[in-house]
């Protein structure tokens, strides 16, 4: 089975100039954890995920300070979350995006998800335009269908 048989074709996407706050609200509305970011020419320029928002609002040094537990929410985190309105999607998004073609096998996409540590991969045509998106769930559904068919 190929990616084009399981991917979602009606892809919601974000503009790089959209505010991060609106982007978070769209993620909430769609009940998904990430969306592709597409510029005016229809080209994929990044991926915006919930993780990028958390990386932005939490201090960058928490890992280096070592093990501890937040017993209260620091003021800075609340302030940074409030500032999301003035932050553009392009400032937080991940620019290095893993993509696949429509004719790639499901196992190859699954392998890419595991090795590249991503949950969903945009599907692009030869011109680099996004034609769909494939998630872990789509892969599993495809594999189940394939199993039943066999």
């Amino acid at each position: 089975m190929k990616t084009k048989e399981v991917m979602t074709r009606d892809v919601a996407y974000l503009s790089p100039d959209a505010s991060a706050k609106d982007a978070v609200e769209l993620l909430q509305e769609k009940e998904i954890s990430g969306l592709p970011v597409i510029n005016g020419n229809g080209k994929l320029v990044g991926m915006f995920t919930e993780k990028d928002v958390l990386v932005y609002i939490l201090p960058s040094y928490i890992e280096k300070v070592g093990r501890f537990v937040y017993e209260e929410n620091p003021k800075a985190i609340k302030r940074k979350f409030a500032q999301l309105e003035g932050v553009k999607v392009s400032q937080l998004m991940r620019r290095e995006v893993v993509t696949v073609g429509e004719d790639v096998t499901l196992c190859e996409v699954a392998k890419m998800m595991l090795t590249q540590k991503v949950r969903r991969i945009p599907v692009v045509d030869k011109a680099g335009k996004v034609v769909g998106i494939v998630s872990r769930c789509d892969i599993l559904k495809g594999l189940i269908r394939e199993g039943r068919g066999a």
Partner: protein
Amino acid sequence: MLKKLILLIAISLGLGFLTRNIGLSLHQATAVSIFSVSVLGTLFFWSFRLTFAFLGTSALLLTRTIDLDHLIKFSSLEVILFLVGMMVLVGLLKDSGFFAWIVSLILRIKNLNANKFFVLICIISALLSCAVDEVTAIIFIVAAVFEICDYFEVNPTPFLIAAVLATNVGSSGTTLGNPIGILIASKSGLTFEDFMVKAFPVMLACLFASIILLKFWYRRQLAELDHKMKQLGANEILIRLISVPPEKELKTALAIFGATLLSISLHHRLEVLWGLEPNTVLLTLPLISSGLVMAWKWKKARGYIEKDVEWWTLLFFMLLFAQAGTLKYTGATDVLARNLAGLAGNSVPILTAIVLWVSTIGSSVLDNVVLVAAFIPMIQSFQGLGLNLQPLWWALLFGGCLGGNITLVGSTANIVAIGILEKERNIHVTFFRWFWVGLTVGLITTVIVWVALSFLPFYR
């Protein structure tokens, strides 16, 4: 980029030709030229420093400037292993919540006022830098400064700069504060006790002077913080902001680290007692402790070695030490040392001043390990001239540490702290905002060291 590369090649070749003209042999001039490529490579192309070190070291071997046996000998494996051991120990401390515990202690200071906060932050920065290393120390001091400044709604920049300056000063106090401390101890035979008796008190004097100066420099910001503290009341949310479970693990980690520090402080006596070569115990103690840590935390042992040890930096150090050793091996530094001593009239006080000020100014733009690695063979060559080396070693240590305060790029601690400030608060510290305060602290502390080394018979 191309311009910088051309400049680097031109300077390195120029130095090679120049030193050939002042009496150096072909091999000696080649060693100077290749070493200068590595030094300038760190200045112009910091991200590519390991590339320059790999290529330079290969060139030294292929041109027969040094043989493999000596290259390995000069790579100072003992210093590298010491640093590996300390990095594993720091990894354990981080993992057990030690650094977060220190942050929580700072946040829990009762009856906090601006003056108390400022002085304590400077003292803790300096002392922690003595016990672990300056880069590790500054990360959690930055965390504490950010939380407190956020809570009281003031700009953290002045407090952060003060903490970094204190960290650099503190890093000169022991052999553990900075890689140059252990490098100098290893090459000079100076012990931890020597550092405690001769470097630590001077460091305290420098710290005291820095705090006074910084309190004056940032008096308006201190007044603003004081006002905010009175306005917003006690730091109650800060007091319960973070906790560090579980306690038992933290206590065990602290016990291991404390025992290591205590044994390091007694290393010279243990070496005498057991008839070992100087600094054998000093250099092996972190290995023993980290070996025990890896036995205790065997499931995480690979993680400590792979994630907590900075192999990129250590590999660079190894090759840099080997290249600097080539200067000694070929006799290049003997010729240069003879010329320099001649110019100074064989006067140790004049040479001390030269080493102190050149290393202070040099380390304000260059990585201090690079600078110290370059100076060590020169100082070793002075020994052949029958000069007393002790003040020169201390001058090199203090110059290498204190010079780092002068510019933004003078030390790794500065770069790390300013990087976090930019990322977290979007505050850009300009070169000159740092330079004026850094230069003032750098000059005053170096003068203190110069006076101590020149006038106290203790150091002669």
